[in-house]
């Protein structure tokens, strides 16, 4: 009941006209970004971070804006999957399988409508799960000492390569790059400077916001400049809505199953939304067996992955908010934003920054309603925006990125760094080295190092403290499994997931 009180306070924060306006804007921008092929939620959030700084938003508003973008991108991803058979982002891949056949049968409008509804129920289930689980987990997190945190971060790294990574070696390279970048600056456990070469600007280390905006947003711009400058996409017609109420009701069990499964896979660190949509789709196929016509435009084949990926997107917020361990690339970006707003995720945040946590959670609920309202009547607008030539969007995004980063610290040094990261990101992505592990390495590496040091100080140098407690042991076990399992089931999953892929999007 305590939770309910907090949630009501959260609504009071999220429902102020100012915050509501940003939630609406975020939901709209997120959907738009989500439906652009190649632009996933992580890029979407990364592109809007500078905007939050440019406008000088207060922390709760900034977080509401970014979570709305996140939720919106999860909705938007389905639009191009259904209409163009090109997933807007990786989690939307599974939606192609039945969404595109439905569109070809002339039921594009139905597929878009039902997937919006499925996204809504998935998002709702996920957010309710978040509300119930997060405060409990936050209290539990108090019993985490340095040894447990160390094992947990190890687990996060172990799951990195996991299911979505195409080449485990490249994931390891990317994570190592991230950790290497993170060692620049003062080492807090000894108070000495590392790799700063007497350059004052490097003393506090490299700001991960710079790395994120560079690696995601700037490199994305370079990709646009290279390949898609000039012309937009051809217009696609959506057709008339023929979805019947009975058909809608018949998908409810699918929606529930998808949402719950998605939420669970979202909570697991490293798995994220792609796994959520994949598992939901596969399970649905198995539950219904021959009764369904999956792959040929079965409506439940659209509902399951959409409910799954939106459930997962809320689920991924649970470990991020309670433990400070991001469950996916997008939550890593959100975590970086929280840290640069001087807010430390973890149990303390639920008491000391209750207005922000619960404001964000309430905004997720409100955002889902807004998104449903936006996505059913306005779907035509998004479809039309899909054909806007990038030459109009490009300069806007560039300008916002530069102004925003400059307004954080008024330093041109930071701008050079951002551009350098952008160019590096461009080449890394050309080499098919994923950029999400770089961010995770950058965020988690120092934490892992710090907790290892602390654990050893507490135990007077006895390494066995790292696996002394039951909790730590179980993290080690899961970490071990996450390293081994992908080699057993990974190739199978990946082959199936990639079957629907034509254009390779950035991972979630």
């Amino acid at each position: 009941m305590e939770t309910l009180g907090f949630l009501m306070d959260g609504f009071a924060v999220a429902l102020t006209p100012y915050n509501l306006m940003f939630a609406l804007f975020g939901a709209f921008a997120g959907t738009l970004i989500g439906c652009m092929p190649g632009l996933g939620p992580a890029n979407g959030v990364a592109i809007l971070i500078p905007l939050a700084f440019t406008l000088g938003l207060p922390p709760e508003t900034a977080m509401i804006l970014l979570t709305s973008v996140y939720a919106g991108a999860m909705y938007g991803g389905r639009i191009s999957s259904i209409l163009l058979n090109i997933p807007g982002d990786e989690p939307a891949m599974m939606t192609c399988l039945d969404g595109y056949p439905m569109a070809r049968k002339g039921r594009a409008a139905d597929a878009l409508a039902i997937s919006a509804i499925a996204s809504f129920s998935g998002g709702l289930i996920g957010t309710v799960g978040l509300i119930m689980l997060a405060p409990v987990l936050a209290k539990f997190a108090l019993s985490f000492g340095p040894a447990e945190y160390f094992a947990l971060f190890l687990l996060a790294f172990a799951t990195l390569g996991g299911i979505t990574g195409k080449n485990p070696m490249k994931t390891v390279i990317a994570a190592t790059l991230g950790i290497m970048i993170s060692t620049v600056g003062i080492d807090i456990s000894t108070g000495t400077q590392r790799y700063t070469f007497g350059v004052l600007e490097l003393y506090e280390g490299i700001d991960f916001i710079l790395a994120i905006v560079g690696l995601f947003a700037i490199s994305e711009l370079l990709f646009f400049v290279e390949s898609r400058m000039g012309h937009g996409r051809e217009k696609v017609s959506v057709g008339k809505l023929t979805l019947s109420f009975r058909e809608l009701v018949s998908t409810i069990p699918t929606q529930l199953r998808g949402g719950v499964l998605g939420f669970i896979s979202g909570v697991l660190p490293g798995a994220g939304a792609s796994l959520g949509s994949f598992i939901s789709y596969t399970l649905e196929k198995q539950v219904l067996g021959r009764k369904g016509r999956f792959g040929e435009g079965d409506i439940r084949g659209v509902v399951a992955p959409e409910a799954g990926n939106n459930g997962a997107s809320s689920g991924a917020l649970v470990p991020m908010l309670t433990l400070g361990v991001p469950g996916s690339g997008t939550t890593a970006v959100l975590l970086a934003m929280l840290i640069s707003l001087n807010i430390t995720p973890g149990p303390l945040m639920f008491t000391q920054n209750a207005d922000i946590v619960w404001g964000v959670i309430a905004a997720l609920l409100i955002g889902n309603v807004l998104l449903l309202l936006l996505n059913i009547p306005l779907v035509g607008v998004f479809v039309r925006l899909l054909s806007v030539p990038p030459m109009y969007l490009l300069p806007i995004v560039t300008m916002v990125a530069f102004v925003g980063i400059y307004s954080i610290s008024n330093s041109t040094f930071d701008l050079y760094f951002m551009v350098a990261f952008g160019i590096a990101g461009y080449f890394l992505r050309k080499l098919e080295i994923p950029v999400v592990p770089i961010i995770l390495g950058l965020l988690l590496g120092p934490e892992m190092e710090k907790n290892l040091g602390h654990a050893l100080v507490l135990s007077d140098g006895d390494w066995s403290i790292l696996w002394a407690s039951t909790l730590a042991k179980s993290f080690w076990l899961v970490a071990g499994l996450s390293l081994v399992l992908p080699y057993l089931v990974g190739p199978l999953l990946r082959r199936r997931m990639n079957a629907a892929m034509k254009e390779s999007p950035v991972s979630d």
Partner: protein
Amino acid sequence: MTIKRTLSLVAAATFSMSALAWQPSGKVECIAPSDPGGGWDFTCRSAGNVLRELGLIDGTVQTVNMAGAGGGVAFAHTVSKRAEDDQLIVAASTATTTRLAQKQFPGLNADMVNWVGALGADYGVIAVGKNSEYQDLNQLLDAVNENPKSVKFAGGSARGGWDHLKVLIAAKAAGADQLPSIPYLSYNNGGEAMTQVVGGQVDAFTGDLSEVTGFMASGDLRVLAVLADERLPGDFAHIPTAKEQGVDAVGPNWRGFYMPKGASQESKTYWANTVDTLYASEEWKKIMKANGLIPFHPPAGEFDSFVRQQVQDIEALSREIGLLK
């Protein structure tokens, strides 16, 4: 008649001019050597607001964020590029003096700027979890004296930073001799460190009073001592000082300003007086109360020597624990 009035007006104008002496005209800048949202940013923005409200400044005070090197970038900027700027103040605190003392701004020292004045302080505290065996500061420090490794401290600054130094100041005052052996776990901020102490993973917390108010009110944290000269006013009156427990340790984290060394003498006098007026105003008292700042304001003229003394003390202590060679 008209001429007479005009003359008297001119006279009055001349008189008021000489009374006010030098005054900044146009834009005044306050550099906050951090990202928006930190303590220095707060100092600049709230001082700027009150200066305008009180009419002490004609225009506005523009806060410029210049993060980097824990204040080093702004310090270097002031010394090298703004050395004669009359209209510039820079926010500073004990963190600035700590880094100066430990030579963390290469080639720069405290003599290169003019220290204007302080606007209050956040006093250091030492606290333990509610289930801790230690009931007062002496029990805790006795345990440290007996075996330096027996009490593990957690704080929000890097090793050698201000939170760490507070432990050492207290331990030294209580007669501990093996200062470098006292375990100190550094976290990214006070909040993270406190979570570990409340959760029972680490024995004691070192930080500033404003950080512990939440957990102190909820009863999760027991504050053993505040490192102030005498008991603090208001809600904090129940916290014993280290001094009254026989440990002569004081640790104010002051907030204030410095300005360029080469600025004109008139402007230096103006800023010292203005900070005095600002500090004495009702508006500022409200801000201090709302943000957990405790009165701390060495009289004009003494602030400079206070800062130098603090730098010297920290330097000596850092040498003792081997942070400085």
